[in-house]
């Protein structure tokens, strides 16, 4: 760059003469004219802003396109075959603090309109301005909410309408009574549009059986674990019901997905129903637990006892899972790399009642990341071992290629248990591990107490892990194929409520001992005398009594002839035909044949008895259709308290759990169109100051290193730029001084002729 002139001089005369005032032109030059011009300019300024306020050209620079419609929404909108009318019942008179929210909602709706390429018609209606519109809104269930507004001298309440009605294909409609937040609008609206386009809601049944809190006081305070949040979150998109087979019925045939959350006290009948759901091609998700801990017990984390199988159950749930290809060992996983540990914040009170937060690292709460562990073999390998050999045994932490985990940066687990795939899997079954721990983990039987505040909790395990072989523990497995029934070759278990049938008819049901008498409490799942009796039965005897069909009779190979009929029922041949009909694909089935309706309980009226007579349960030994099953070795990751975050610091929090579960359901019940909606904001942006993958560092070393690094980085970033600025100043000062010296040297030179050469 050319050097600047040392002395600035006016530019040569080649410049034009002083230009006439190109600005202003205010004529007389008075302040009044100036003010008038200024007011005029402000008017133009306001006018431009007003005219351009609806110009919506924007570019979303965020990595996850947080402020744009997702690909999922665009795909759903592209499926619109008929015009979708969105009626926005928005009152125009709104409090000032609500303007921004309203603008964002309107912008979002406008984005929908544009993306649908003419298939969406957006109509704004103000119920406060028109009585008929208000009545219509009320009829639709769009109710006004009262919001506070600040008047000139008082607070008053104002009615606010902000509801939507979607109309599609003439008769289909959906109403959102009140749009609360623009941020949640897309995840609320898009599934509804999808539902309107598809014309149905997938059906999901949940079996939620939380363990009661061992502390009766906390139980009273409703501190029993709950899974309401996931249920509520998914309720918009799915038809959710609770699994109920207590009356002896099977699960509905049109059930898309069955979800077992923390299965416990499972009766044989329930196991049979689950099995038959799989055999019919229904999908199954199991959130399996080995142990759970009570966090309300003064930070002691006391184990909550529970059993998978109900009292009196002859068949083991774990065996049943094993028959499908999933092994569980009932142990807990402890992660031994501090980087992945969850943190528990304990409030410690001193003698004056003052609370102070204390942070504990807890290896039983940990996160899993999609790391390729093969790469870390050299860091992990023990002395004298071959890193290459270790690398061969290691796999990726999360299979992010699978749509269920796509976009998930991590997953949190809490008292997780390993769920492994059986080797080899049965023919026709494909299985894969979706999530694995790090290789530096321990597995152990659940201890009665596991308090995070126990200083030995980590120390003991740090010593132990060095002697243990390195092995990744699978935490989520997925299986697909035509499963073989766990009940193949076994009799159909006793149905709840059968005792009364037996007594009335004088006949026997399979698996029942004729010598045992009716239990008056039949139908309940509590251990009864009857169940105790069945427990003692000889399975071989049961099996023998089960085969009622003659050997010469032709039967569907996948369909076992074992059947539980109410005695004295319709002809066997007709019933068999009926059953065959029942096994036809879902869509072709008449509605009344979709699984046996719940049989009547004892003491029914005549109609109930009639239904009872018509009922027949057929057992499938081999699945006719391909089904999918996913087993997760943790149910806490979708539990309310873990989703919300634990304690006052709301840490750890399993936000990913709800995303994972939603993805899982969508992949099984829908066509994955909505996955992207939830993967928004799912990138893990947590700062990792010490990236110790090897796990060879102790907790104390880890903490010290993190603190030191943070301190250094803070100092560097606070004082570095200031020093940089001062350095620039010093350089300029130095250059200026040398310039000055050169100038002085020039003018003091005896040969100086009074002329200064200007370089430009």
């Amino acid at each position, binding site marked *: 760059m050319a050097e*600047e002139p040392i002395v600035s001089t*006016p*530019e040569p005369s080649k*410049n*034009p*003469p*002083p*230009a006439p*005032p*190109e*600005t*202003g032109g*205010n004529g007389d*030059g008075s302040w009044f004219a*100036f003010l008038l011009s200024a007011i005029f300019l402000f008017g*133009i300024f306001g006018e431009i*802003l*007003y005219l*351009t306020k609806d*110009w*919506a*050209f*924007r*570019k*979303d*620079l*965020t*990595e*996850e396109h*947080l*402020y744009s419609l997702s690909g999922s929404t665009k795909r759903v909108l592209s499926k619109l075959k008929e015009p979708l009318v969105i009626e926005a019942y928005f009152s125009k008179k709104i409090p*000032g*603090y609500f*303007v*921004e929210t309203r603008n964002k909602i309107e912008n979002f709706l406008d984005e929908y309109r544009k993306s649908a390429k003419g298939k969406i018609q957006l109509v704004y209606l103000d119920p406060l301005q028109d009585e008929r519109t208000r009545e219509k809104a009320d009829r639709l269930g769009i109710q006004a909410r009262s919001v506070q507004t*600040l008047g000139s001298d008082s607070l008053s309440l104002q009615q606010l309408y902000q509801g939507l009605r979607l109309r599609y294909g003439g008769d289909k409609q959906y109403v959102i009574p009140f749009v609360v937040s623009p941020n949640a609008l897309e995840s609320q609206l898009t599934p509804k549009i999808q539902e309107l386009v598809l014309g149905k809601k997938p059906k999901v049944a949940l079996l939620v059986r939380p363990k009661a809190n061992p502390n009766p006081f906390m139980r009273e305070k409703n501190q029993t674990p709950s899974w309401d949040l996931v249920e509520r979150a998914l309720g918009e998109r799915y038809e959710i019901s609770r699994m109920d087979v207590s009356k002896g019925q099977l699960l509905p045939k049109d059930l898309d997905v069955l979800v077992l959350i923390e299965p416990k006290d499972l009766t044989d009948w329930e196991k049979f129903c689950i099995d038959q759901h799989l055999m019919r091609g229904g999908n199954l998700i199991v959130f399996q637990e080995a142990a759970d801990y009570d966090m309300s017990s003064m930070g002691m984390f006391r184990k909550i006892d529970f059993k998978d199988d109900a009292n009196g159950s002859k068949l083991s749930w774990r065996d049943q899972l094993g028959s499908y290809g999933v092994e569980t060992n009932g142990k807990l996983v402890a992660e031994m790399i501090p980087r992945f540990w969850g943190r528990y*914040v304990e409030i410690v009170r001193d003698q004056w009642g003052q609370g102070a937060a204390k*942070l504990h690292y807890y290896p039983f709460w940990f996160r899993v990341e999609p790391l390729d562990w093969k790469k870390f073999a050299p860091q992990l390998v023990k002395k004298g071992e071959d890193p290459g050999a270790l690398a061969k045994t290691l796999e990726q932490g999360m299979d992010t290629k699978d749509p269920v985990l796509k976009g998930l*940066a991590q997953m949190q687990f809490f008292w997780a248990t390993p769920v492994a795939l059986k080797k080899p899997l049965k023919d026709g079954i494909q299985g894969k591990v979706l999530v694995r721990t790090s290789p530096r983990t321990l597995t152990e039987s659940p201890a009665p107490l596991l308090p995070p505040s126990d200083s030995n909790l980590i120390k003991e395990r740090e010593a132990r892990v060095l002697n243990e072989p390195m092995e990744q523990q699978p935490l989520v497995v997925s299986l697909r194929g035509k499963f073989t029934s766990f009940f193949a070759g076994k009799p159909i278990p006793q149905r709840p409520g059968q005792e009364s049938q037996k007594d009335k008819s004088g006949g026997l049901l399979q698996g029942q001992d004729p010598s045992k008498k009716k239990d008056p409490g039949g139908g309940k799942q509590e251990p009864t005398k009857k169940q105790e009796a069945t427990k003692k039965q000889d399975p071989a005897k049961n099996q023998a009594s089960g085969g009622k069909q003659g050997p010469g009779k032709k039967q569907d190979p996948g369909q076992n002839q074992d059947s539980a009929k109410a005695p004295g029922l319709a002809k066997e041949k007709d019933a068999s035909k009926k059953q065959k009909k029942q096994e036809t694909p879902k869509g072709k089935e008449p509605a009344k044949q979709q699984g046996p309706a719940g049989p009547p309980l004892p003491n029914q009226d005549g109609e109930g008895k009639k239904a009872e007579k018509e009922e027949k349960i057929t057992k499938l030994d081999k699945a006719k259709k391909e089904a999918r099953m996913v087993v997760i070795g943790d149910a806490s990751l979708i539990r309310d308290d873990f989703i919300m*975050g634990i304690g006052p*610091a*709301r*840490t750890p*929090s399993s936000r990913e759990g709800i995303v994972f579960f939603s993805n899982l359901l969508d992949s099984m019940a829908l066509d994955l169109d909505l996955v992207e909606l939830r993967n928004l904001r799912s990138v893990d*942006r*947590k*700062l*990792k100051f010490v990236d110790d993958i090897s796990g060879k560092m102790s907790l104390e070393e880890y903490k010290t290193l993190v603190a030191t690094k943070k301190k250094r*980085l*803070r100092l*560097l*970033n*606070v*004082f570095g*730029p*200031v020093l*940089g*600025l*001062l350095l620039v100043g010093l350089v*300029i000062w130095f250059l200026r001084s040398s310039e000055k010296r050169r100038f002085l040297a020039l003018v003091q030179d005896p040969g100086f002729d009074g002329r200064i050469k200007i370089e430009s």
Partner: protein
Amino acid sequence: MSKTTVILKREFRSYFLSPIAYVVGGLFLAIGGWFYFSRVFFDFGAGAEARMDGFFNLLPLFFLVLVPALSMRLWAEEKKLGTFELLLTFPVRSRDLILGKFLGGLLFVVVLLAFTLPYPMTLAAYGKLDWGPVIGGYLGGILLAASYLSLGLFISSLTRDQIIALLLSVASLLILVLLPQFGAAMSPSLAEAFKLLSPVEHFRSIARGVLDLRDLIFYFVFCGLFLYLNALVLEFKKRNG
């Protein structure tokens, strides 16, 4: 080299020759860095995240003092030193003078902002930083500074005293910053209108990582308005001495 560029370079250089730029710039970097890094590394709860929102949220507040401190001298100093009249006699158009001074001041703010680039670099080194909002934040910061500077420059042209220019600029900007709050307290329609007029609201929109044409138009028109008013003042002074 155009006249605007010559004036821009002169103004830009003059900042580095004045101690006030180092004091104001140094304070901005030290306090801003301290505030931000005390919070971004605080990870007792859910854990510190690689986000720059905390820093960008502070910018409108810091610029409220920083930019007027830089703009106060642009005309007022010329007047105080008696070079203002001389400058007006130069064969330079008002437009070049104003643009040169404005861009010189803006360039200095850009340099100061460039000194904060180690912040996102640090975050990117230890976490997954989304560069979209960072780019938006810096661009929004520059546009916000430009709007503040254009107003400060205009106010500086109205007075001879630098301190008065500073106080008037801070007061005017404070009104602009608080405008949406005033509007919200009065009526919804006013709230919406006042939000449209507030540079901070437009900055927030860009800083979250969304480039909206309306925000860009706002800054362009806002700067244009005050630079034009500045030109009117110069013309007025040229004519009236």
